[in-house]
């Protein structure tokens, strides 16, 4: 009876459904710039979710996920510009490419810990734009100028949707699919493997988890997710260039995860909204102080979010205790002599 509360987050499902419903509703309400902006928020949320999976579930911090975002973006850009795949079909393929490369990068990288892993991934995000510019790949990547693609248009001659709305709709659909898949993974044995190796690698080994392999898989799945976001971004904007995927993108994703917390799905949405709107708002407040304000708000968030999370966790625990326990039990149970009998 108590089992359900812990694992199947009934409230989470409701929230997810509500979010998807709301998003779909918005598809029909907005168009033009706001449809575009909303789609970028969804894409950012997905990218943050991807990194969150790595950090929250498997405990590895990556400063290089901007590179996977870029890789996904370029993969889909190349598929589209070479006319190998239609825009939205390029998304899963790009994700797959990122997943495989992420896994391969992860295999050796999982030997590293803490600052060493941070540097290795940081290196990835530094090297990535340079590789894109390299003459070897220039035919495909378009070199420094990048690729400009045809914008997506509504298919099947549908007239009651704007192009922007169609793009938003497809973005939401893909994002929902990826979110659901990740959710299933995290709730199943895969999630158990990740959580265990994050919290205690030795103990994880002792319960039969192949730590190296699952760390690398976490890297791969995370890269695939971020890559999917990148691919969606290409489809949405119709443009990729090396300079869009700088270190700052990687750091922004990291900040996103700091805001969202290690596991909260809703948090990824909040983080995306922050990352997407905060710079605009700051710019409105003061152009000179944009950077200082943005940084200050980030600092503030770091101090506020944990307090919020703690409060949430506590109320969640309380809720569980209320629904789970037949009678209120003092939480720390001491083995008093009476109880032992």
């Amino acid at each position, binding site marked *: 009876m108590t089992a359900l509360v812990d694992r199947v987050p009934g409230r989470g499902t409701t929230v997810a459904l509500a979010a998807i419903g709301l998003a779909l509703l918005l598809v029909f309400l907005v168009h033009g710039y706001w449809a575009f902006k909303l789609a970028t928020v969804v894409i950012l949320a997905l990218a943050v979710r991807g990194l969150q999976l790595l950090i929250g579930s498997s405990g590895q911090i990556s400063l290089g996920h901007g590179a996977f975002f870029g890789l996904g973006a370029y993969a889909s850009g190349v598929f589209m510009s070479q006319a190998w795949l239609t825009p939205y079909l390029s998304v899963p393929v790009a994700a797959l490419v990122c997943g495989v490369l992420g896994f391969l990068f992860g295999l050796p990288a999982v030997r590293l810990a803490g*600052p060493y892993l941070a*540097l290795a991934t940081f290196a990835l995000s530094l090297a990535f734009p340079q*590789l894109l510019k390299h003459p070897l790949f220039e035919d495909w990547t378009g070199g420094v100028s990048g690729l400009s693609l045809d914008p997506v248009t509504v298919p099947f001659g549908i007239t009651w949707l704007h192009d922007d709305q169609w793009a938003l709709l497809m973005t939401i659909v893909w994002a929902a699919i990826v979110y659901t898949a990740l959710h299933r993974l995290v709730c199943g044995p895969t999630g158990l493997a990740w959580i265990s190796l994050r919290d205690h690698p030795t103990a994880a080994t002792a319960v039969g988890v192949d730590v190296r392999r699952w760390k690398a898989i976490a890297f791969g799945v995370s890269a695939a997710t971020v890559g999917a976001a990148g691919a969606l971004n290409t489809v949405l904007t119709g443009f990729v260039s090396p300079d869009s995927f700088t270190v700052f993108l990687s750091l922004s994703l990291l900040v996103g*995860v700091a805001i969202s917390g290690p596991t909260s799905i809703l948090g990824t949405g909040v983080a995306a909204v922050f990352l997407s709107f905060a710079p605009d708002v700051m710019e409105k407040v003061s152009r000179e*102080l944009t950077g200082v304000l943005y*940084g200050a708000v980030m600092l503030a968030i*770091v101090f506020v979010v944990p307090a919020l999370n703690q409060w949430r966790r506590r109320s969640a625990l309380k809720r569980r205790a209320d629904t789970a326990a037949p009678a209120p039990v003092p939480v720390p149970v001491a083995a008093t002599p009476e109880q032992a009998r």
Partner: protein
Amino acid sequence: MMEFAQQVAAGFVNGCIYAMLALSLVMIYRATHHVNFAQGEMAMFSTFIAWALVEAGAPYWAAAAGAIAFGFAMGAVVERVALRPLHDSPALAVVTVFVALMIIVQSAAGLIFGHETYSLDSPFASWGGVGQGLLSGHALGTVLVTVLVLAAMSAFFRYTKLGLSMRAAAINPVSSALSGINVSRVLMIGWGVAGAIGAVAGLLAAPVVFLSPHMMSGIMIYGFAAAVLGGVDSPPGAILGGLILGIGENLLGAYVTGNELKLTIALVVMFAILVVRPRGLLGGKAIQRV
């Protein structure tokens, strides 16, 4: 041959600058087990202080002292204000603080000093140089200062109580406090010293890369890489890492791979080294028992 020597010499001097930054990172790592991404920006800001003082008419050495003092104060304040409240927060929160600091310090510098490039001349310029442009006076000075700082830092950790306290506090703050170590003071000093070393690094870098709010963004990557390559808790490792990167990068770029992928190749090599030695070249072993 001359060209080869020049490449090595130029790499050596750059390596010293990377190493100085790496040393300041090592300092912070030893004191708090964090890698401060904003270290480069903090160093930049301190260097601007020196520049402002020189502009205001102060003699170079007074300005440098002012910058170093400022670096110390800034490090200490950052620890006190931004880091201490987070002492039991997840690593991610700390990383975010560093990113935020990086942005804040950089834009504040732009706001205060403008985005142009300035020059801050080297106090060692008058030493003349060695060889035909092989080692300039500034290069000689850079090497000298690096050696001095390394020696001082190694002695500090090995022979002083404060050094021991610092290592202890980073490993186990609770036990340290129970042993009578004023952990917060030690951390603050650790950050302060790191800030001061950073300022020295900035002063050494300024005559080479010139002064601007973004002067460190290119160098810091190497400082970071040097620290990690050498082993992020080892001062000699920082120097070794810095020199390997500085010289290796120049030689690779000039004779092997061409300049476009210079950084990329350097990073790939470093990654390979790390995969074989996951704690860097001179880093301490991970101590884990069950």
